């Protein structure tokens, strides 16, 4: 059964049936009830694609994440999906694999599918890519820092400040030989973390050593091979700060294989606070990144634009969320557990 037949049975125009489906408040209650009853009895379901054509809405959004195997992005994805689901939207999840070309292809594909908005997580896309999307009337929101895009809504944390907090914690315990292992991605955020690391060491008058700054793939394996290099050094670092928890897991794994005790011989601080960081032995001291909240707020900003009336200015809101240091047992405080904001 189609919309014309529904209109005929209910004794109203096609336009009235359409209004019941899309703007129910604009139809008199009795008429609305009559039409809804006909729809119910006839098993009619609206054609959602056609609905998108008519009203410029498909009730879908696109979500691009850098790596589906990294649990921190799944937390963010859940936040986005939680809001989208409440709004009766379906989310297309695209795994960009840290490759800008793959990301571009996904964006094109999402545009062909007429999504109503796109959320980019730590994206590698350039300003021109995003401008092209927005010119077609599709709003974009960023979660985490991007290459160099300004003027659109973004949710982020202060990676520089968070890293500084982690390194300062290590120095406060008494470590001075501190290495950093960072992932090639997310690019800009990790650059900020290195800045924070270097700033604190410089402030403390600790000489920077290039061989204590190591770049690897942002994976457990990356952490493992970097740790193995550090273990082999003549002057092995006493503490290691990693730009993600996955890297920290790899470091702990390597330390176990080489019978080096954590934290007695080497202290480790991670970044993200993914769920497993509380399960690994020793429980990982890490920076808590409010990942789920970043997803929620990012999606909210997107819906603000999609639902906004023209007079509202929702164009370039930036929301900075707070991260905190979760002190567990991987860096010298075996007995103490706490949080530093």
């Amino acid at each position, binding site marked *: 059964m189609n919309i014309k037949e529904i209109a005929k049975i209910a004794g109203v125009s096609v336009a009235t049936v359409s209004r019941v489906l899309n703007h129910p408040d604009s139809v008199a209650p009795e008429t609305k009830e009559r039409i809804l009853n006909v729809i119910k009895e006839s098993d009619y379901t609206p054609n959602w694609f056609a609905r998108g054509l008519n009203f410029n809405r498909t009730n879908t959004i696109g979500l691009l994440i850098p790596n589906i195997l990294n649990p921190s992005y799944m937390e963010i994805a859940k936040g986005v999906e939680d809001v989208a689901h*409440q709004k009766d939207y379906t989310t297309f999840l695209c795994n960009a694999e840290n490759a800008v070309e793959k990301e571009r292809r996904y964006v094109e594909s999402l545009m062909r599918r007429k999504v109503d908005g796109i959320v980019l997580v730590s994206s590698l896309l350039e300003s021109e890519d995003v401008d092209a999307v927005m010119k077609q009337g599709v709003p974009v929101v960023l979660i985490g820092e991007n290459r160099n895009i300004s003027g659109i809504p973004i949710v982020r944390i202060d990676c520089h400040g968070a890293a500084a907090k982690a390194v300062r914690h290590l120095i406060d315990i008494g470590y001075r030989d501190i290495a950093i292992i960072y992932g090639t991605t997310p690019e800009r955020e990790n650059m900020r973390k290195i800045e924070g690391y270097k700033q604190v060491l410089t402030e403390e008058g600790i000489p920077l050593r290039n061989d204590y700054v190591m770049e690897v793939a942002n994976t457990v394996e990356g952490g493992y091979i970097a740790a193995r290099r550090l273990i082999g050094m003549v002057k092995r670092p006493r503490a290691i700060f990693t730009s993600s928890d996955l890297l920290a897991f790899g470091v702990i794994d390597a330390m176990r294989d080489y019978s080096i005790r954590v934290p007695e011989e080497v202290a480790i601080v991670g970044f993200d606070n993914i769920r497993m960081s509380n399960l690994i032995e020793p429980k990982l001291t890490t920076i808590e990144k*409010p990942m789920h909240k970043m997803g929620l707020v990012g999606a*909210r900003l997107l819906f603000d634009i999609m639902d906004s009336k023209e007079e509202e200015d929702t164009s370039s809101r930036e929301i*900075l*969320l707070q991260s905190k240091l979760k002190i567990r047992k991987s860096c010298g405080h075996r007995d103490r557990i706490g949080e530093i*904001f």
Partner: protein
Amino acid sequence: MKTDFMGLKLKNPIIVAAGPWNRDGRSIRKGITAGAGAVITESIVSDALFDVRPRVAYNGSGVQNIRLYSDIQVEGWQREMDIAKSKEGVVIASVSAHTPSELAYLAMKMEKFGADAIELCISSPMGESLEVVASDADRVYAMTKEVVENIKIPVMVKLSQNATNISRVAKAVKNAGGAGVSAINTVRCILGVDIETAEPSLPTYGGYSGLPIKPLGLASVASIAQAVDIPICGIGGISNYKNALEYIMLGASAVQMGTAVMINGFDKITEVVEDLEEWAQRKGIKEVKAIRGKALEHLKSFEEIKIEPIVSRISSDICTLNCDACVKGCIYEVIKKEGTKLIMDVDKCTGCGLCTFSCPDKKFHLDW
């Protein structure tokens, strides 16, 4: 007894404080129906979480709670505010966050959903450690300013007693454009420890509320009222109309009740509103401002106190009680008792005043 609080015209100064008793539209309506001048939502956050169990401990006078904010997401509050505001009634939205931009965003949302004012909950002493923010005047300024610049409805900031200088924080709120302050939030606490099992009453720090914190609340409200010209909402241990009047006489334009509602239900609101009205009518007072700050006139700085040579006097020297509270409590050895006869060595009395409070028979008074 009407009041004008931050430009809100309230039919009476009794506001139901933020808390789980105002967890949704339906429960907010209960407070309005009970007669409250206004109701404040449970604190709304960006990422609502499930509650811990248990989350409340009570020792008969004070309550420790470790409840962390509303479990309804922001989206859901649109529906709840529609229910809360479906009839008459003033609804203030409490929002909580760690950064200015996050806080402002939540406030904007709640303004859009119909809130009449915003209370910034940036002083909670629980796990989130917002108390640290509440004692930092610069951070409170930054947070308040960002919110005020983004919304049109009045903004009040809930302050913590655990600040080095609460007046300084209140001044920061005023300078940032805040319309008012509320004081005090719950006080960081551990209710007790079971010495057999070595377990604290609840597994983490919580906020202490109820009658025991009233003196702390009164002092905070008075301190702010003396130093800063900003509307104040008094909070802490209010369980009857007299308590409400104490806050008002020390400078509050309105007051909040929370723990009393938790323990006794919304009937307590009705009781306090009615008793207050009855008192006001008896005194011929129509508006809160007629008595607001009256007690501040009698609140002196230590140096200003004029010392009179008062000593303890007794109305009669016969006492048949065997409590001996006066004798035990007199470190100056003024009071002695032989049988049922009180003997006063007045020359030794320094007029401290303790006996006038400790005697169950109120036998003592100070005079010269």
